[in-house]
């Protein structure tokens, strides 16, 4: 095709001209490439294949303002398409870092062009968002919001907020540490004050809407499950008034983001009057579930709902009783649904079914489970994680374990996820397995075959504290009312030394679980346990736990001692003659009921 061949020739010569010593030639070439690629995915692909990106990168250090501005715009065009190669090459180069540095440039024209390109760049899920959170970048962006004209301020705010919108990871209390670090940096940079400025300034209408959206995203991110920041925010009465107004805005996205902020503040239960009650806030969001204008808001509403429902039973009840489940299920069944919509809907379902049996039964009765199970093998980490979390929520039910979940044959998939590339997924899969391997679960047997016990025991020495915790939890549940054979398999893998080592975990939450594990091991098998672990080691270990231990640990130790005394006379005598009994008697006057109740068992 002559035109195509000529286009190819022209393209090649433009790309070559980028290396020219003649500055005007160079500039002409950049402009021509920019114009050619805008709006044309095939041209973007063509030029990328011709090696345009490294050449453009070199020009960024030319020092020539006009030239650089054009290069930046061209890069923006290349990013803004469907060609994954262009994006990949840019991500792997120094371009993002150079562009961020250019935000400090004295020429506002350059800054604006750069900000525009960076806005497009950071909208992409694969973009290295952690770059935004470098201290200098944060303060640079905040300065742009505070001190530059509104069009640039809006771009800066959107870049700052893009971390929030592009995250594909779940934020649950156990996975929050990473988020806390980002929140702290963002707060320290003055982003909140900058956001306040955006919410209250008199801007042109169009810019205003976009700025408000970004400002609300920033405030929403800052306030999510962060008590300290919420306390600071709540001191600004102006922000509460603003949120109260914005939740009634005509724009669905502004409503949604304002609702999220209000819910975050309300969750922290600070002594300030939060604009809206929790149920009123949820009502707003439930209504937004029916909105599909703009179309992309369908993707955001379920995720926002999921955040609001975290650990809140009353609100979960409210949502269970609404038509939300029906809408979310139909999202999952929608063949044209985007990955973001799927992920968001799964997140919401996991949250809705977290605490209430009614919610789980309602979801299971829709027959959606096989579809959810299929998402466990999706290529997107976010979708796998959300699907896994759904399964975990649903597995907190004896009925579900014995019926719908066993029909799914979910156990092999969960074990496979223990080795997922994402640590977050490993954690949640392990949590689901904790429930799947319970005594009354028919899937327990399958879990134990195929080196299931070995895998779980191995995880008890993982460097990640939540994985360790879930692994010990799984073992505790595994040996609950189990036979000696099962307990022996566990002890064989852990080894007696390994078992005692677990008691030395730095995390108290884990030590409590280890004590529970021990109690369950001793249940009805005191003689076996004493023979396997050696009675003096047991006595020594339990004795050491009496020192400065919390009521939770003491309670389990007492139960464990009680279980040990139900063995043979020899076992009983050994325990009764040990220092443990004196300690048990002392516990009878412990202030905590948690400690006193096991004493009644002992008697």
């Amino acid at each position, binding site marked *: 095709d002559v035109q195509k061949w000529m286009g190819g020739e022209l393209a090649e010569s433009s790309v070559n001209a980028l290396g020219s010593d003649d500055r005007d030639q160079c500039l002409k070439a950049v402009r021509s490439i920019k114009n050619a690629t805008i709006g044309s995915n095939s041209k973007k692909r063509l030029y990328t294949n011709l090696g345009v990106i490294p050449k453009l990168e070199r020009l960024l250090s030319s020092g020539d303002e006009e030239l650089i501005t054009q290069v930046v715009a061209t890069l923006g065009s290349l990013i803004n398409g469907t060609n994954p190669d262009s994006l990949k090459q840019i991500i792997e180069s120094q371009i993002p870092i150079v562009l961020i540095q250019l935000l400090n440039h004295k020429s506002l024209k350059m800054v604006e062009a750069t900000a525009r390109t960076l806005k497009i760049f950071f909208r992409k899920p694969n973009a290295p968002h952690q770059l935004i959170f470098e201290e200098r970048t944060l303060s640079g962006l905040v300065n742009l919001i505070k001190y530059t004209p509104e069009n640039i301020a809006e771009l800066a705010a959107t870049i700052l907020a893009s971390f929030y919108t592009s995250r594909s990871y779940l934020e649950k209390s156990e996975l929050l540490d990473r988020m806390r670090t980002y929140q702290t940096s963002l707060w320290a940079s003055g982003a909140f004050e900058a956001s306040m400025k955006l919410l209250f300034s008199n801007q042109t209408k169009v810019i205003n809407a976009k700025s408000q959206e970004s400002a609300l995203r920033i405030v929403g991110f800052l306030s999510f499950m962060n008590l300290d920041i919420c306390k600071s925010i709540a001191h600004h009465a102006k922000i509460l008034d603003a949120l109260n107004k914005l939740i009634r805005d005509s724009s669905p996205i502004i409503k949604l983001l304002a609702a999220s902020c209000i819910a975050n503040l309300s969750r922290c239960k600070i002594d300030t009057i939060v604009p809206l009650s929790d149920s009123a806030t949820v009502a707003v969001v439930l209504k937004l579930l029916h909105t599909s204008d703009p179309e992309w808001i369908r993707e955001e509403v379920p995720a926002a709902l999921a955040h609001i429902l975290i650990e809140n039973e009353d609100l979960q009840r409210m949502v269970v009783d609404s038509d939300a489940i029906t809408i979310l299920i139909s999202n999952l069944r929608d063949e044209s649904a985007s990955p973001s919509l799927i992920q968001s809907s799964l997140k919401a379902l996991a949250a809705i079914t977290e605490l209430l049996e009614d919610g789980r039964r309602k979801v299971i009765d829709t027959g959606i489970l096989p579809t959810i199970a299929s998402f466990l093998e999706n290529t997107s980490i976010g979708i796998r994680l959300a699907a896994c979390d759904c399964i975990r929520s649903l597995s907190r039910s004896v009925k579900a374990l*014995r019926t719908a979940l*066993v029909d799914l044959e979910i156990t092999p998939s969960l074990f496979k996820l223990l080795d997922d590339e994402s640590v977050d997924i490993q954690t949640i899969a392990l949590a689901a397995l904790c*429930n799947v391997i319970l*005594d*009354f679960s028919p899937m327990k047997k399958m879990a134990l075959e195929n080196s299931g016990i070995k895998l779980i025991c191995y995880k008890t020495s993982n460097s990640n504290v939540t994985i360790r915790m*879930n692994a010990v*939890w*799984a073992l505790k549940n595994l040996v609950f009312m189990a036979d000696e054979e099962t307990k022996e398999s566990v002890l064989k893998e852990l080894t007696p030394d390994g078992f005692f080592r677990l008691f030395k975990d730095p995390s108290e939450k884990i030590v409590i679980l280890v004590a*529970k594990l021990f*109690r369950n091991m001793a249940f009805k098998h005191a003689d076996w346990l004493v023979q396997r672990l050696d009675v003096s080691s047991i006595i020594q270990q339990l004795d050491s736990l009496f020192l400065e231990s919390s009521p939770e640990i003491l309670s389990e130790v007492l139960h464990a001692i009680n279980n040990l005394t139900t063995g043979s006379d020899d076992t009983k005598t050994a325990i009764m003659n040990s220092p443990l009994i004196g300690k048990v008697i002392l516990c009878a006057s412990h202030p905590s009921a948690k400690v006193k109740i096991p004493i009644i068992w002992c008697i």
Partner: protein
Amino acid sequence: MDSFYLYSGSRFEGKQGNGKASYPVIIELKTVDLVHSRFTGYLHISGLTQEYPQLTTYFDGEIIGKHFSFVTNKWDATESVDLEYWSQFPEFHEIAHRWKIANSDDFDDKDHLFMRWKEDFLVPDHRVTSIVGASFAGFYYMKYSKSNGMFSGYYYHPKMIDKLQPLELRYVRERCSATFEFC
């Protein structure tokens, strides 16, 4: 101390039925959630049918009070059936005059709790939906004594000729205890 005998793994044994038509029963509680007035368990009954000399079903328990009313309003039980069965328990008469609005306060300082138990599916195979000679389509009206862990009650099925089939169970003493939580 309401829940001393009600915990995961606690067992109760006794019998269902009268005289010659009486069958040994053991129940094992699986989950106990007093906050939501619910619990779950297995019910084993022996000798009920030839095909299933040992029959185990999963059941849901509802405790009357904060979350569940004396008025059943499901499982084909009308209010007159409710009154007929609840009235079998002498302790019900104290509260009979306001039975429709009873709540948890009414039981706080009493020795008893009222419950309904509904069997849902067979264990181990939940897909079996019907058994010759036996049915779990009905449900039990039950009373529980906090002080000694005894259950007593009656099975109701709308199509049953042999109405008011009694069920009585007492706690099986256990010296040791184990623990689990859903993750």
